[in-house]
């Protein structure tokens, strides 16, 4: 069930360079949310910026939903200045979340940068013990681990583009490495991050016939499937030309997307 309400900010703290973690009080959304779903937040009661901003739910804790966000523009800048006790208009949980890995099979969770957010929620709910969590970041000061959202003792393999932490390279390199000594093969690959990273991960998974689910980002206006502003091209496999990321996604089977058009 989708809720639209004014939610109180339980906390809003910086957890990495330009990255913040916000706890929003909403027993309703917390109860309904599944990993991969997102919320639309109105950053302030003004005509500008006009539209709500979409953010993945990165954790459900007590009666809070948590969002992990990077300051990239005006909306997120305004959000970062909000304080505990302030209120925001929040709508969610929205969209279709991640599926489940087949019983007893390991899952690989791959994140690029802020793409870590929904995967933390996924790992937390299916159990990190059954997952390999792999994440790629630009540099060591950008790294966001599970501990930053209060998930302790969770293992994460890291790659950085500049080699300042973990393996030098991309999360796709990390995944190849893990796959080379995983037996049996993982039951499912989950991915969230920038398009080039998703392309690389999906290509590896599809080549090996491992089911792969990716979470996409697009510009959005309504978040409810009404405006059709969030379209992405579908692959020929399904009898339709576009998906709406807010409603049929943000999580898709990698085979249902036209990767050439993304």
């Amino acid at each position: 069930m989708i809720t639209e309400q004014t939610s109180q900010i339980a906390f809003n703290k910086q957890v990495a360079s330009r990255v913040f973690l916000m706890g929003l009080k909403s027993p309703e959304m917390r109860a309904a949310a599944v990993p991969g779903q997102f919320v639309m937040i109105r950053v302030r009661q003004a005509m500008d910026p006009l539209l709500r901003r979409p953010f993945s739910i990165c954790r459900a804790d007590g009666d809070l939903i948590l969002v992990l966000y990077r300051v990239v523009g005006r909306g997120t800048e305004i959000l970062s200045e909000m304080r505990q006790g302030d209120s925001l208009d929040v709508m969610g949980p929205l969209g279709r979340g991640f599926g489940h890995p087949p019983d007893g099979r390991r899952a690989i969770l791959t994140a690029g940068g802020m793409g870590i957010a929904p995967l933390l929620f996924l790992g937390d709910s299916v159990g990190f013990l059954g997952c390999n969590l792999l994440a790629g970041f630009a540099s060591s000061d950008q790294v966001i681990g599970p501990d930053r959202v209060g998930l302790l003792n969770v293992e994460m393999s890291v790659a950085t583009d500049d080699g300042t932490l973990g393996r030098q390279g991309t999360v796709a390199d990390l995944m190849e490495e893990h796959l080379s000594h995983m037996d049996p093969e993982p039951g499912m690959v989950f991915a969230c991050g920038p398009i080039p990273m998703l392309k690389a991960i999906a290509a590896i998974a599809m080549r090996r016939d491992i089911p792969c689910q990716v979470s996409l980002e697009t510009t959005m206006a309504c978040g409810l499937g009404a405006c059709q502003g969030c379209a992405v091209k579908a692959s020929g496999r399904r009898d339709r030309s576009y998906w709406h990321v807010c409603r049929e996604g943000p999580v898709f089977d990698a085979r249902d997307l036209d990767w050439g058009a993304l």
Partner: protein
Amino acid sequence: MANLPDLKIRVGPLNLKNPVLTASGTFGYGAEFAPLMDLNRLGGIVVKGISLRPREGNQPPRIVETPCGMLNAIGLANVGLEAFLEEKLPRLRKLRTAVIVNIYGNSVEEYGEVAAGLRGADGISAIEVNISCPNVKQGGMAFGTDPDMSARVTARVVKAADRPVIVKLSPNVTDIRRIAMAVEDAGADALTLINTLTGMAVDIERRVPRLANVSGGLSGPAIRPVALYMVRQAVKAVRIPVIGVGGIMDYRDALEFLIAGARAVQVGTANFVHPRTGLHIIDGLTDFCRAYDIPAIEHIIGTLKEK
């Protein structure tokens, strides 16, 4: 409790429970908003524009935010007439609110065919004709920018339809009064204005248009003064009722249009900002009438004092 003010309003042949409708393309087929609100409280719902055949819409990116507004180039994506009747209308029909079907075509004939296709269908209060679409047969210029073409589309739809016809005007014209009068003469029962204003935005880093379609339609509070002025001009130029739309965010904005002479208003982009905007406006109008001892919303309409 004191008497509730009467919000009922007549828009030509249409009887609405209140003057607040949702605008085409911003409220889907209603069902999308059903989990968040009681749709029956609305004065009416105008559904996404329907064409004869399904349309996929434009390549993404399709939307971009602009100061106090947004540009969209959705490309009139819709399920098509047949799927609308079979899949969408049955749910809409159950609502206790006016359902208005927005239609468009690529030729005068196609407009007529869509209107004819809706004949006899239960649960449709009126047809709203979007004439802002390109005329494919004649070089892609919008029907709505030419008085003769606007009149021809109107006449064709009026002839084919078996219920009230509202024509929705494009603001991308030099003199809105000429189009309004031509459409009135062609037999329209009412007018809606305005549709979006054509605009564009540029990504300065990549030096490309922000919309794949290059241009798009501007909507939201940024266009409200333009919409209000065009509504006022139309109200003075025609005798048929006018429905006002463009940047309405709250009941005060709605009142500006009603005072300027619109008999009803539509809420568009504001639905994205807050899905219950329509209901908030209805509550706001109720409270306003009470505070000023106005027994019926009818008493406000067209009361603008102009020297």
